[in-house]
């Protein structure tokens, strides 16, 4: 079984988000980059499935050389090999086109992404790659089991969940619950250095969107404190002043 996991390189979750160049560019000065947390979940599940089915896990990343530490981390966690498409990830369509193009010439049984990247929060890549390849896609799954050529996945719906069966190959975005992220061990870290990391040039694609500028949310006013001894007053305030209950 051949499994492909798409990984993006994102600012660490504790990063204070600021911008430069007149709010047109993310300020990455001093920022620690990590594997997108959902992609770590996808990778962990891919490794488990590969182990059970004598399979192989490839990770793919569309990005510049500066994201190689993130790719090496994925190899240390247990991916067998890595592909970097050498380009700036301009928008979701561009990234999806690169990934779909790679899949066309290297068939996979299962393709996993994260449910969203925590920087641009698109939730787009799984659906776009699915559409470009005309294979099924599920935006966010909470459980994934593979049995021969068929998978059973669980998807969250408003107020409950849905259990779906899908024939391989398909693409899905991993959310919490699919697996516990794996921490690389010493052997993994050592072997990551020698595992293959192939660099491929990008195919051309027109971007369809461009980010013109960023903004950070206006700070909230200061908190209005209510004395614990008069906690019940909160209810009247929410009813009469905030008008939310």
């Amino acid at each position, binding site marked *: 079984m051949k499994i492909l996991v798409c990984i993006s390189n994102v600012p660490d979750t504790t990063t204070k988000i600021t911008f430069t160049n007149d709010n047109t560019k993310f300020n990455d000065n001093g920022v620690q980059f990590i594997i997108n947390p959902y992609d770590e979940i996808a990778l962990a599940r891919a490794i488990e499935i590969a182990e059970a089915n004598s399979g192989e896990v490839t990770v793919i990343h569309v990005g510049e050389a500066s994201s190689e530490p993130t790719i090496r981390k994925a190899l240390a966690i247990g991916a067998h090999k890595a592909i970097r498409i050498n380009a700036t990830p301009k928008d979701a369509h561009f990234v999806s086109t690169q990934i779909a193009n790679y899949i066309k010439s290297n068939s996979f049984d299962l393709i996993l992404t994260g449910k969203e990247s925590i920087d641009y929060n*698109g939730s787009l890549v799984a659906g776009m790659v699915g559409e470009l390849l005309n294979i099924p896609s599920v935006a966010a799954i909470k459980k994934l089991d593979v049995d021969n050529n068929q998978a059973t996945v669980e998807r*969250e719906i*408003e*107020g409950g*969940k849905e259990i779906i069966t*899908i024939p391989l190959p398909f693409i899905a975005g991993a959310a919490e619950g699919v697996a516990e992220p794996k921490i690389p061990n010493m052997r993994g870290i050592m072997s990551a250095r020698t595992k293959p990391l192939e660099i491929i040039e990008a195919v051309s694609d027109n971007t369809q969107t461009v980010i013109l500028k960023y903004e950070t*949310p206006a700070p909230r006013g200061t908190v209005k404190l209510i004395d614990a001894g008069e906690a019940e007053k909160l209810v009247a305030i929410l009813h009469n002043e905030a008008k939310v*209950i």
Partner: protein
Amino acid sequence: MSVLIYIESSDNKLKKSAYELASYAKTIAEKLNTSVTAVAIGDVDRSELESLGKYGVSKAIYVSGEKLKNFVNQAYASIIAELSKETQANVVVLSNSLSGKGLAPRVAVKLNAGIVDGAIDLPDINDNKFVVKKTAFSNKAFAYVEVESDKKVISLNPNSYQVIEKPENITIEEYTPEIKDTDLRTVVKEIAKATNKVSLADADIVVSAGRGLKGPENWAMVEELANLLGAATACSKPVSDAGWRPHSEHVGQTGLAISPNLYIAIGISGAIQHLAGVSSSKTIVVINKDPEAPFFKVADYGIVGDAFEIVPKIIEEVKSLKANS
């Protein structure tokens, strides 16, 4: 030319997001001198579709069929794209809901349209520029995205656009699509819905609790308060990791991102990853015994004290408010 919206329903009724989409699309349609067409797929009452006329929809297309009773991502995406072409829609708007997230990227690729996911405001349409504001960096920032393609797809965050009445005479059409077998590869085997529970993703009010509540046995008061307020319940990540509450209740950077009108946080410290998922709530109330808890910095109202004393008091007060109204 038209603006097309895909609206969602559950138990034959339209979701609240349907009216938000209608109002949002109507405002865009006015700017572009055109009208709004709504597409509904699956079981929904006719009277519900008619009610969209009040919010500016001129035409509703109702798509049904045995194979479409359950949500099938690919088949639904094909239908939406097909009807977008047929009605010559140049703007297509969907809800950025759990199902909408599956549809929007596929529809965009089919239409060769640029997409803005998680939009939170109207597009700014000027000098042939089409710019949409969306959340980015897990609610820590906003991005203004220009869509350069002719056709545009927008997925609108729930709860981010006001419902506005703008009555139109609505006509309702039925449409029976041809569905390709390749669009029906995914099969829904089972749907498990928690009955009479308010769904977290589109709740107006959310009561949420964290590790400060010590253990799962203490959630009765959280549920009681939520029931009284017609609210959904949520929790912090360590709480669902410990199995005190289901994963589906986990909000934050790695959980669900929500923006209810009211978010009540009980015994949650307000870690940056938690705030990422809730900070766009309109009103935030924090109950925490530690006055230094970071959550107070983003709260509108706060009570410093022991949740086990405060929450029961609030419950009693809500009861008497309900009794008197």
